[in-house]
């Protein structure tokens, strides 16, 4: 399978990348890890006339631990994030990074590329929307900081201007009594998840939910924040009944489509189950327990 012909250009700096985007015109595109873009090009669902390779721009892969925040360079690979000690302190980030596709894809795919691609089945959007996340976008008019909840417009569509790219992803560290979990269900390692649920909750005392975010992946055109599900738990004691009500509300919030991965009804049922389990794991983690979570598939 071969994509349409294109010309290839290597940018040595972000400035050069935006300049090339301007010079090469509307059909040019930036390529980072290429793990979403290359399959799309091979299926001829995308056909850029020029590719601008940013992989060799220095300093764009760093992961910085600064006071209250973690800063991920756009080119930080999923695998770099998986093994990063700073990330280990925020388990939901590790859940996400460690389970994306397989080793080969994690070695190549990037956090910036994943967000900029805005694939509805991508893992990072759902995960990062449970935290305070901002995206540093850079382009010819200069830099701007976009909150992640304002970043996605639609499937495969973000607020990025044509001559703009992601430079950095900034994640606020959650408070101490906070815990999160990302659970994705997939048929086998290399495929996209059928459905996923991300939960980050902060405790007041031992079992009262001070604050919570619940985000669903793969069941809508973008990741979906299940606000009613959050309301069922916020300021409430977290117990079987409140978790049940939140899962039911999450099921209602999902907007899945039937496809080769399952029927819409199946995905709704899956979302409810994943949300329930993610809340339980997030709760244990918020209390300081170490719990394994992440992507689930046969043979894991």
């Amino acid at each position, binding site marked *: *399978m071969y994509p349409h012909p294109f010309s290839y250009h290597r940018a040595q700096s972000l400035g050069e990348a935006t300049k090339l985007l301007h010079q090469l015109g509307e059909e040019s595109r930036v390529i980072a890890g290429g793990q979403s873009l290359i399959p799309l090009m091979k299926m001829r669902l995308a056909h850029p006339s020029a590719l601008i390779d940013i992989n060799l721009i220095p300093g764009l892969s760093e992961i910085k631990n600064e006071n209250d925040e973690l800063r991920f360079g756009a080119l930080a690979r999923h695998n770099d994030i998986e093994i990063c000690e700073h990330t280990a302190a925020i388990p939901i980030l590790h859940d996400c990074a460690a389970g994306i596709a397989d080793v080969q894809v994690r070695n*190549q795919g990037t956090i910036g590329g994943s967000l900029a691609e805005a694939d509805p089945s991508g893992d990072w959007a759902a995960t990062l929307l449970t935290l305070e996340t901002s995206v540093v976008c850079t382009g010819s008019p200069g830099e701007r900081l976009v909150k992640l909840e304002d970043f996605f417009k639609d499937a495969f569509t973000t607020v990025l201007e044509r001559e703009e790219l992601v430079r950095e992803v900034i994640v606020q560290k959650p408070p101490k009594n906070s815990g999160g979990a990302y659970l994705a269900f997939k048929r086998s390692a290399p495929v996209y998840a059928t459905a996923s649920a991300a939960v980050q909750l902060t405790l007041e005392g031992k079992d009262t939910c001070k604050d919570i975010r619940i985000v669903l992946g793969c069941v809508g055109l973008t990741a979906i924040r299940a606000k009613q599900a959050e309301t069922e738990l916020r300021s409430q004691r977290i117990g079987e009944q409140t978790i049940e009500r939140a899962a039911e509300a999450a099921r209602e919030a999902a907007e899945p489509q039937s496809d080769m991965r399952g029927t819409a009804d199946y995905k709704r049922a899956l979302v409810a189950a994943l949300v329930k389990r993610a809340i339980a794991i997030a709760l244990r983690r918020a209390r300081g327990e170490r719990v394994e979570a992440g992507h689930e598939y046969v*043979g894991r």
Partner: protein
Amino acid sequence: MSVAEKITVRVRVNGEPREALVEPRTLLVDFLRENLNLTGTHIGCDTSYCGACTVLLNGRTIKSCTFFAPMADGGEITTVEGLSTNGALHPVQHAFAECHGLQCGYCTPGLLLSTLHLLNKNAKPTDKQIRKAIAGNTCRCTGYQNILKAIRMAAGEMGRR
């Protein structure tokens, strides 16, 4: 520059400098097989699923069907042809042969490189770590049990060297 204009890609493959003039859309796996005549790297699904095309680029495994050759320019590549030395099998290859870690052999080049990548980072992997490390490599013959045995054996042999 016309869109189909060919460009020179220069890489080191298994320690040797190699180059070829190719269309930018050339996939790395085809560059290796067609331009450099290294046919040990296989094309399985061609959709980034099966891992038969796995090679090491700068020490990390990638699926060479989901990678454009020009992106590798200046890089260091290891393919299955680079594993043996003077006709002597690499311990990973030897372990796969000993444990019947292959039947038809189509997926084997990719599995060998995924194994090498794992053992380079983690000399004593647990079974769970082994499973995770080869989750991106599909084998339709063995049922994986003998592959697991082979990887355990390879870890032991490489540890002794």
